């Protein structure tokens, strides 16, 4: 056999051997699609009407509606606690607005806080594995599978919206639901109830707040000019946390 013909045959054989797995992969291209009833938006946002919220002192409807179904553990040690949505004193939420004359009652006023789903999320910029990322609809999402627990995102977030699992959360979950728990060594936070939107429902905190007849939490699409959040955001003077940092939070407050 001549060298030339040997090379030809060998080359053809090699190409043929490669073609088999390629053809297999192409014919078996997995098809995935959104669930039929999923709610989609261009830019999700939340408006928190503090005036309405304050009419129900001591109410924890939104907090419970979130933490229980999402298997957020109740860890007593404050250094280890996990929070997706919680109450913080006004003076800590809007520190820039507090003056030496601000009344103690206002300074200590409980204010609902959660992940701000920023337009320019610093947590996403610093994540080395893209475990946290911004979806096209604005939700700052966590892919726990990719989280390596470096906690850069916790350092990056100016709102303290992220919690780290310093210990196994499972012993601290009283009644687990089907929602995946997290494990020791990953960071977690609010996801604007991506799992609810996927099945055509609004975030659990919003539904719970409406359920008790308060309606202080208004969720919607800023890309839709006729939505309730759009009208509020466009038509009134709403507060955002630490606007000077340029993160552009998409949780708005009516104070």
């Amino acid at each position, binding site marked *: 056999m001549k060298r030339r013909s040997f090379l030809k045959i060998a080359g053809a054989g090699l190409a043929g051997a490669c073609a088999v797995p390629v053809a297999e992969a192409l014919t078996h291209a997995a098809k*995935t699609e959104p669930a039929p009833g999923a709610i989609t938006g261009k830019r999700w946002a939340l408006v928190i009407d503090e005036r309405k919220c304050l009419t129900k002192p001591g109410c924890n409807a939104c907090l419970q509606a979130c933490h229980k179904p999402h298997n957020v553990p109740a860890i007593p040690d404050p250094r280890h606690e996990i929070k997706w949505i919680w109450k913080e004193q006004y003076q800590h939420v809007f520190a820039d607005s507090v003056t030496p004359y601000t009344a103690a009652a206002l300074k200590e006023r409980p204010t609902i806080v959660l992940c701000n789903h920023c337009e320019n999320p610093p947590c996403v910029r610093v994540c080395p594995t893209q475990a946290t990322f911004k979806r096209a609809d604005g939700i700052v999402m966590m892919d726990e*599978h990719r989280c390596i627990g470096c906690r850069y995102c916790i350092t990056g977030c100016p709102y303290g919206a992220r919690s780290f699992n310093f210990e196994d959360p499972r012993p601290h979950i009283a009644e*687990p639901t089907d929602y995946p728990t997290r494990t020791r060594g990953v960071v977690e936070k609010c996801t604007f109830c991506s799992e609810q939107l996927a099945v055509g429902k609004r975030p659990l905190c919003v539904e719970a707040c409406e359920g008790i007849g308060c309606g202080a939490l208004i969720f919607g699409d800023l890309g839709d000019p006729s939505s309730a959040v759009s009208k509020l955001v466009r038509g009134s003077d709403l507060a955002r946390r630490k606007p000077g940092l340029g993160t552009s939070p998409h949780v708005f407050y009516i104070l």
Partner: protein
Amino acid sequence: MYNAGKIFLGLGAFAALVTAPVWYSVANGKSGPPELQKPVEGKECVEPTAYMRAKHMELLDSWRDAVVRKAEHVYVSKDGKHHDMSLTGTCLRCHSEPAKFCNRCHEYSGVEVYCWDCHQQKKRS
């Protein structure tokens, strides 16, 4: 050939040593793959058995990326059927006891399965 006897004896000893774990397993009745619990309800998996056996890890990876990163929850299998991409919600509906299905094979092949560190092993609702 010089020292043929010694060489063949050495080769034989070497072969015996290298294959010792196989013979050990055979002697202890662990020669074949483990017995897996067959699903009671549901005759077909989302894809054919051979594909699932070889590629379930890739399938689950694609499910995970689709659900978490693309917000897509429906898997269209080769035969056109639609499935909810959920480990707890779909896989466990038939393979209700991972300890008698996933774990047996994974232990046999020495591949750690850590899905259950986060995902629930029992569907509650």
